[in-house]
């Protein structure tokens, strides 16, 4: 029954040529890896080199002052930093409950036949180019928000600083809502992965003690998933911070720091997008690149934090 074991032909010694080819192949791939590393370093180096004039001229005041005056060559990035942070936080505030809620729905409640279509549609949402979100934002979302939400709220609650001032349409709120729609798919998919790491026995334990579905979710998520969901949130934040086109098209592009969400704002990515080609003068260009550098560092810190949280705190989830 047993097949005869194949006899290994005795070849005297190992071929040397094979080793050299293997060596060359490995080193070639390593060289390409080195190129990718080099490109990343080059990006960083170029950003620093080009923003040096602005860094020398303005120093720390670049991120603490709020005058942006190309004519007088006074540049400071605070309004843009403010706009980026506020619109992104607003987006996260809207997107996290929706993303986590629908992740729970898909993983825990949705009937089998509904799971794939919903997650497919959410993936599709992530694949739409941001310029199309912007287009839709300008012509559909902004008018809807303006007429059905901002105007009535401004009439009723206009005395609250958050809703003060005339209603134009393009605003911090519009940017926040549009960003929320764009980052929800990411929060959704990471949340689903996080939820999937919960051991089935723990869920069953709660149910067997007579807990309702909701109590099971509350207890299990409270026990297991909070760090992971926090990681998903930070990941979504990283996405929102750097988003350019959609924000540029609906945020209103006015470099003021105003508390009201109904007023136009400006973001770091948007000012680079709008003014880069018009930047006359080296200092103007350098200031725009420095905004890019600040944004670059900000997203790096946020993304690394998300990665750290997700790899450290969520057991059973591959870090990526």
């Amino acid at each position, binding site marked *: 029954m047993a097949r005869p074991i194949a006899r290994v032909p005795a070849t005297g010694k190992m071929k040397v040529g094979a080793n050299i080819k293997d060596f060359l*192949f*490995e080193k070639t*791939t*390593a060289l*390409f*890896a080195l*190129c*990718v*590393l080099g*490109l*990343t*370093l080059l*990006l960083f180096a*170029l*950003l620093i080199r*080009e923003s040096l004039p602005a860094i020398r001229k303005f120093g720390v005041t670049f991120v603490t002052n709020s005058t942006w005056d190309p004519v007088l060559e006074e540049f400071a990035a605070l309004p843009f930093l403010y706009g980026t942070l506020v619109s992104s936080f607003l987006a996260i505030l809207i997107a996290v409950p*929706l*993303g986590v*809620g*629908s992740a*729970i*729905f898909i993983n*825990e*409640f949705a009937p089998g036949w509904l799971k794939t279509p919903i997650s497919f*549609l*959410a993936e*599709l*949402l992530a*694949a*739409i*180019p*941001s*310029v*199309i*979100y*912007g287009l*839709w934002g300008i*012509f559909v979302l902004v008018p809807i928000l303006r007429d059905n939400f901002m105007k009535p709220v401004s009439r009723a609650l206009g005395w609250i600083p958050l809703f003060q001032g005339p209603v134009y349409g393009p605003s911090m709120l519009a940017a926040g809502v549009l960003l929320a*729609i764009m980052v*929800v798919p990411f929060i*959704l998919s990471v949340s689903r992965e996080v939820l999937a790491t919960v051991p089935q026995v723990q869920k069953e334990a709660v149910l067997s003690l007579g807990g*309702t*579905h*909701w*109590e099971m*979710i509350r207890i299990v998520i409270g026990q297991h998933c909070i760090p992971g969901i926090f990681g998903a949130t930070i990941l979504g934040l*990283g996405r929102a*911070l*750097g988003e*350019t086109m959609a924000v540029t098209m609906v945020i209103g592009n006015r470099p003021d720091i105003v508390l009201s969400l109904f007023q136009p704002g400006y973001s770091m990515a948007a000012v680079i*997008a709008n003014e*880069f*080609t018009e930047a006359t003068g080296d200092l103007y260009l350098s200031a725009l*690149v420095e905004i890019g550098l600040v*944004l*670059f560092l900000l*997203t*790096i810190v946020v*993304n690394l934090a998300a990665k750290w949280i997700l790899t450290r705190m969520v057991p059973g989830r591959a870090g*990526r």
Partner: protein
Amino acid sequence: MTSIAFRRKATDRIMKALFLLSAFLVILPLFLIFFDLLWKGAKELKWSLLTDLPRPVGEPGGGIANGILGTLTVTGLAMAGGIPLAVLTGIYLAEYGKGAFASVVRFAVDLLAGVPSIILGIFGYVLWVLPMKRFSAWAGASALAMIFIPIVVRTTEEMLKTVPVSVREGALALGIERWKTTLFITVRTAAAGIITGILLAMARILGETAPLLFTALGNQFWQTGLDQPIATIPLQVFSYAISPYDDWHGKAWAGAVVLILMVLVLSTVARLLTRTRK
């Protein structure tokens, strides 16, 4: 039934309804966007859209033919540079990447993947436009390549790692050299996954606007060379959308329909590739 039991049951129902509602709200914009694209783009969706150059405001007709060609050109250039770099880097990381150098490369790729695309536009600008004093397809393509590379490196590495070690051992045991094993057996086994990654990355850079604003710049006419400004569909959609003219708004919607069709076809093909393999 005690009131506590009732309250627990009611909370359960309400929370379930809220979860359902949130899933509905997440998906809703997708339908709204597709509906509006077709509704508002339909008027301008004519054959001439695909074959004609843009016309000035007021003149009827005109299309985005130069943008379609430009998008394919810039995307093609970015991929021509990006695929070898990214796939070989992915092979290195998966097959040989154990030491400190590999961790550094992996870290760099992770960083690159998170960089906002507008910043890669600055990269293209500083690298090409500043020294050449001219906006160009090269500048746009190198910005797009920087988005393309980290996505493909990651998928290549992941896909290669799904190939069982026994496959490699089997090949090596047959006396096949290691480099041949890697190229013709391991990579071959993971090919569908790698190609899927490439197509998804392609779909991603196809729709990018921000990195092209001040690199490729856009062009009203046919492209004349790779060292010249070049039109792309996303750039056209953007400039039509922010223009004050109604018929240009129509063009923006129609352009968006063309763009999203390209993206959808690519992602569907990509998905089918991996599905049939499973």
